[in-house]
């Protein structure tokens, strides 16, 4: 037997996830307040975004400040899909904001959104495709660290301006507000209902478990190896740019799914989704919660956003100063975020594993 930290035990980790999501799943049964459910569903989306940063940055070492690109693109795709669900092909074929912008026919790019399934496919597919191309451009050139951060940030700024400027297609600053809720398979997903909360939580839970499983595979170990030392990985025969592009696109996929759920909740999409400050906030959630822990990142997102809505109202603009101070303190004293603190705390609990490390090389490892 060998003394170990329960925090690193795989079964304990999966168990903690089960308990965590189990508790979250039954919350609506005790609350039954549509407005609160809408608010909590939003936290779910923040959690998903934090997951994407944890995967890409925490495990893959790619500091992307542009997760908002996929989030925003997918949000616009979803906004268009929901808008067209409302429009009528015969009597009312063109969204009203287009009419006020003097468009007489529906733009060709909007046509596929008549069909919900094409709309969703585009809302997810386009951002992922964009992340693949953008990833190839960056990683083939072996960009890393601050350069990736700057590139993604600049790209995000470009998309923000586009969404803002192409008023006839995006409704510009006003944004698109589909008049009706999203309908899937004949079911209306009311943004003020228990259902919206479960949809958001379901996506968050599904993605957390999927990413957790992905990190247990050899792919998961290799991306962490690349994070530590890309050069070493290259000389072991790995095409580092390929791995980074795949990982970056996966992060884009996760952020895109967050965008889809977001518009179901808010029934509104505007350039705010592509706002630079928002994307940086996502990184702060992950850093504060613990970027090298999926759980930590999700917790960080919920913790900071909940604090902002409950405490932030009192402090108003001062809230950003508080957030800044928290960020600085955590980065300086808790490099692994709250998750690191938790790891240390759990380490105090007496826990033993079979001392098998001497002879076997097949015990589980990696992950958080």
């Amino acid at each position: 037997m060998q003394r170990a930290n329960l925090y690193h035990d795989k079964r304990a980790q999966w168990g903690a996830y089960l308990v965590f999501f189990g508790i979250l799943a039954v919350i609506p049964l005790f609350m039954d307040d549509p407005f609160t459910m809408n608010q909590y569903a939003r936290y779910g989306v923040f959690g998903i975004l934090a997951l994407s940063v944890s995967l890409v940055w925490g495990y893959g070492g790619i500091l992307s400040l542009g997760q908002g690109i996929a989030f925003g693109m997918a949000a616009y795709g979803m906004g268009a899909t929901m808008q067209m669900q409302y429009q009528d092909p015969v009597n009312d074929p063109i969204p009203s904001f287009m009419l006020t912008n003097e468009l007489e026919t529906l733009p060709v790019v909007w046509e596929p959104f008549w069909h919900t399934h094409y709309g969703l496919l585009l809302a997810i597919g386009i951002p992922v495709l964009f992340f693949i191309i953008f990833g190839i451009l960056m990683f083939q050139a072996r960009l890393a660290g601050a350069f990736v951060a700057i590139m993604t940030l600049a790209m995000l700024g470009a998309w923000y301006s586009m969404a803002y400027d192409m008023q006839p297609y995006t409704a510009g600053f006003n944004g698109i507000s589909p008049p009706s809720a999203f309908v899937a398979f004949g079911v209306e997903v009311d943004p003020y209902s228990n259902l919206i909360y479960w949809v958001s939580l379901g996506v968050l839970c599904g993605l957390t478990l999927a990413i957790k499983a992905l990190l247990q595979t050899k792919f998961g170990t290799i991306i962490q190896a690349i994070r530590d030392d890309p050069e070493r990985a290259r000389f072991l025969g790995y095409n580092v740019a390929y791995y980074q592009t795949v990982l970056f696109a996966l992060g884009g996929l996760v952020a895109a799914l967050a965008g889809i759920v977001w518009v179901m909740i808010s029934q509104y999409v505007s350039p705010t989704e592509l706002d630079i400050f928002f994307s940086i906030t996502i990184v702060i959630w992950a850093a504060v919660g613990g970027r090298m822990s999926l759980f930590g990142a999700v917790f960080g997102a919920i913790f900071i956003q909940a604090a902002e809505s409950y405490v932030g109202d009192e402090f108003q603009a001062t809230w950003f100063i508080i957030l800044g101070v928290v960020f600085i303190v955590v980065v300086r004293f808790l490099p692994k975020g709250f998750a690191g603190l938790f790891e240390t705390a759990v380490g105090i609990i007496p826990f033993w594993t079979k001392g098998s490390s001497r002879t076997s090389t097949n015990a589980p490892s990696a992950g958080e």
Partner: protein
Amino acid sequence: MSVILELKDVTKAYDAFKVVDGFNFKVNQGELRCLLGPNGAGKTTTIDLITGRQKSTSGTIIFDGRAITSLREDKIAKRGVGRKFQVPAVFKELTVRDNLRVALNKNTDPFANMFRFGRKEGRERLQEVVELAGLQDRLDELGGNLSHGETQWLEIGMVLTQDPKLLLMDEPTAGMTEQETQKTSEIFNRLKGKHTLVVVEHDMAFVREIADVITLMHLGKTLAEGPMEEVENDPKVKEVYLGSEGITDAA
């Protein structure tokens, strides 16, 4: 014996300065070759050129019968060239076990590896390497927590796990204590014959311990080549090291 690695007139120039200057070099299968030379002789650059880290200005590098001169690093590695860096490079945030598992690179496709948990993969091979590198008790330790000597052995172990046809070792004993160096030379003597090795080294005691044939580089060219005693007594070598007591002090 067949030639596994051949460098033909390889030159690497920065503007007018030639770090490697029309260098010709041949290594036979199963050989352990030491590459020696004073600082700036072009040893590490030569290793960089073979492994694709730097591209040669002119010349051809043939490995295992095929030219690898302009290939990318990972492709050269996949062909069977393993490399240990001068400053030991291991994955610091991964356990020793995971470091070795990453080195097991039979399949390098990201999508294939998403469905591979690799618990059983290459278990015997890992076992063998772990014993050779003497890391049995350190498997669960993070790479970043190892001592300097252990880090060197882990990296040697990783290169071995790769199972390359040719191993290039850039100063494997740098910074090691005497006992650690002793242990490393035991490892190398066990590798001899089974693997082809090229070792860049400054520690002459170590070289004496392991080398069959040494190649002495000077200003990017071969100055002398042959068994230790022969090279040591070569008048050209004595001239280059004039004022010092022969190549023993080259470090």
